[in-house]
């Protein structure tokens, strides 16, 4: 396992190009991750940018690659997952901990007595500001509303509703399939419908939520 060479990555990309479905999969996955973290944490970054960052992480070696264990497509999806996740974590910490936001903005400093101290100790509140709290609540409210709308869009589709309920309870797709004694094709068909309806819901909420 190690750093992938430029030639190895270039040749893996050309191999993927022979299967157009795999490129479409990468785009769908990137869109999904941007939707997952929401427009607040994505902060204007698009699915295309997420994919670009993932491939650059592979090329720069910050994402190691063992081609015997995972193909480039799997590697890129892993890199996109963790990158989007870190954006969301960063966004969440910024809103929940002003102390973190200050240190991230580079204003943190150490006092000459050796005790770490915030540059604006006297000014910074140690708890989220009312404005941050409001943004966080608004975000949570919107996310909950979107989840409700996805459920509504699946009304009458018993399999899809069962899958959604299972996912909301923290079950994996395999666990849901086994729980209902379904075949693979049944859960796949339900997921296809859920995916399509989820995208429609997000698109219907306007530019802010549409996944580019």
């Amino acid at each position: 396992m190690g750093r992938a060479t430029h030639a190895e990555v270039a040749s893996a990309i050309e191999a993927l190009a022979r299967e157009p479905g795999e490129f479409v999969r990468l785009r769908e996955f990137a869109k999904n991750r941007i939707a997952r973290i929401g427009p607040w944490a994505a902060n204007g970054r698009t699915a295309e940018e997420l994919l670009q960052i993932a491939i650059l992480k592979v090329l720069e070696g910050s994402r190691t690659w063992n081609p015997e264990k995972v193909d480039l497509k799997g590697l890129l999806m892993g890199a996109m997952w963790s990158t989007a996740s870190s954006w969301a974590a960063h966004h969440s910490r910024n809103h929940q901990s002003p102390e973190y936001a200050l240190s991230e903005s580079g204003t943190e400093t150490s006092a000459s007595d050796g005790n770490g101290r915030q540059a604006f100790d006297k000014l910074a509140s140690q708890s989220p500001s009312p404005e941050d709290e409001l943004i966080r609540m608004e975000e949570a409210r919107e996310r909950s509303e979107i989840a409700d709308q996805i459920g509504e869009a699946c009304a009458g589709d018993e399999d899809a509703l069962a899958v959604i309920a299972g996912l909301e309870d923290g079950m994996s797709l395999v666990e849901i399939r086994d729980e209902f004694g379904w075949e693979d094709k049944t859960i796949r068909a339900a997921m296809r419908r859920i995916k399509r309806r989820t995208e429609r819901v997000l698109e219907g909420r306007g530019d802010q939520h549409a996944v580019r």
Partner: protein
Amino acid sequence: MPFDDRLGRILDGVAHYIEEAPAEDILENALLEGSDPHQCAEQVHNTLQRALESHRKAKLAEARKAYQEQAQEVRQLAYQLPPSPEGRRRLLQRAMERESLTLQNREFSELTDEDVLVQLRSLAELGSLDDLDLPDGDE
């Protein structure tokens, strides 16, 4: 992952479906969603190619910068060294004698001019050439 809420869990489920679904499903979904899968695949291909190209250019620029820095170092050092390969060879011999470093005559004569330069650079970095007179005719 932050936002471990209902929406997050539904979208994680969709992500796992995208990961595992057969390629035909993915292509069919794209068609049903009204996008042209081939155009979409081409866009992704272009995105990856652009990233490859920008990385290649960045690496080239990095290598060029490193080469220029190294060349500059050699030029600076070369200024203090005898201009001729024979002179540099004599200087190396003298420096090695002073440092009580010995090489068999055969080994010494097998050193290429480049080897001599590399050895002199290392000795210069160690300060072993300080106060060492240049061989006659090479000053």
